[in-house]
């Protein structure tokens, strides 16, 4: 039971519980999208909270949620390193360069597409998001699901804000393409 290895100051544990546990759903959501597997996500979140508790004494900020995300990110990355292969099966790989020369967005007269998008059920949208390639998926989830600012995302991913912006643009373009591709099966 490695979790028990955490130190046993009850006061510290109480403070940690009060500030960290309210973010459990957010952290778990992040793990689900990063690892694309429910069991792996659970393990990663548990490991994340263990590490967070261990280092809680030295925690000085940022916001606890961002701190947890940063820890989770490290956990997930070591999880990927541990795996022999990257589970990229079915991933939407980055679109080819020449694809960018053509308009990413169909000439939407907006209404029919908007309706189409809204009709997608949550499961289908989750699947499309999960299928995005990294690092675009992470950036996208941090922005659209976790509602973080570009600056916060930049800090977590340790990249410049400009990179966050371009990754997000790319992520949205890929998602949109996949979306439309599903909607219009190849002839």
């Amino acid at each position: 039971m490695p979790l028990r290895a955490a130190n046993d100051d009850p006061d510290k544990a109480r403070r940690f519980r009060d500030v960290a546990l309210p973010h459990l759903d957010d952290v778990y959501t992040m793990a689900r999208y990063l690892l694309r597997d429910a069991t792996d996500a659970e393990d990663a979140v548990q490991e994340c909270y263990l590490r967070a508790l261990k280092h809680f004494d030295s925690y000085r900020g940022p916001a606890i949620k961002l701190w947890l995300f940063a820890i989770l990110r490290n956990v997930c990355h070591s999880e990927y390193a541990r795996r022999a292969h990257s589970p990229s099966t079915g991933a939407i790989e980055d679109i080819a360069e020449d694809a960018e020369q053509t308009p990413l967005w169909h000439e939407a007269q907006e209404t029919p597409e908007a309706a189409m998008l809204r009709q997608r059920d949550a499961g289908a949208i989750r699947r499309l998001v999960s299928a995005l390639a990294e690092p675009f998926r992470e950036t996208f989830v941090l922005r659209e699901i976790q509602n973080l600012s570009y600056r916060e995302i930049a800090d977590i991913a340790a990249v410049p804000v400009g990179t966050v912006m371009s990754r997000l643009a790319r992520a949205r373009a890929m998602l949109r393409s996949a979306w439309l591709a599903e909607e219009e099966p190849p002839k």
Partner: protein
Amino acid sequence: MTCDEAKILLHALIDGELDAGHAREVETHIATCPACATELAAVRELKQAMAGAQLRYTAPLALRQRIEAALPQAQPQIQIVPSRRAVLRGFAMGSAVSAIAATGLVAIVLRNDDRQRLESEIVSAHLRSLQAGHLTDVLSTDQHTVKPWFNGRLDVAPPVIDLTAQGFTLIGGRLDYVDARAIGAIVYRRRLHVINLFVAQTSSSEPRAAKAESFQGFNIRSWSEGGLNFWAVSDLAADELAEFSDKLQTAMKSSAAG
């Protein structure tokens, strides 16, 4: 501004990440560029669809419990002693009473016979009831009020018997958690001593004679009767606890017979 720049910056515009100067530049470009205007509208739609969709996951309860369980718990026996002692000083009226001798008598009915492991849980439950200001969920000296209160809250109907005439006053009932299950606790008082009686289902219908144990200075008396396990935990002296369980069992038999 070129379209290439605008196509990146419009994301920041939509996300409210641009300062006023840049926002105006992008907007100016979009106003004169139908392609970029179309793209802006498309990104807006995507974003709206995302916002409306249920994309979050909820952490499984088991995960939450695992993490909770991994956090160091406050040690109840350390915390309970000073507060109990303070209370007792007010009531002891000169007699030397050790803090631990404050009495809670907890009779616990459990669903299985894994007694060794449950002993500490039972004592912890007893301590929690004294500590948290949460001794009873239903406060009544009337057994006909306490007994129905458990209906629908438990998968067993704990026997609630008033032993006031025998020197053990019924003061109420409570739901508690032992072995990760809700169980019934019936609370009695003996002089200044609080008695919790825990009741849970057992798979065995074989009656088991009362057995006395001691854990962390508390006396535990357990027995099985009529498909139920009973645990009485208290800092009452062992002989008084035995008296309680004897009288309770006698009363149960006569109420069953009558």
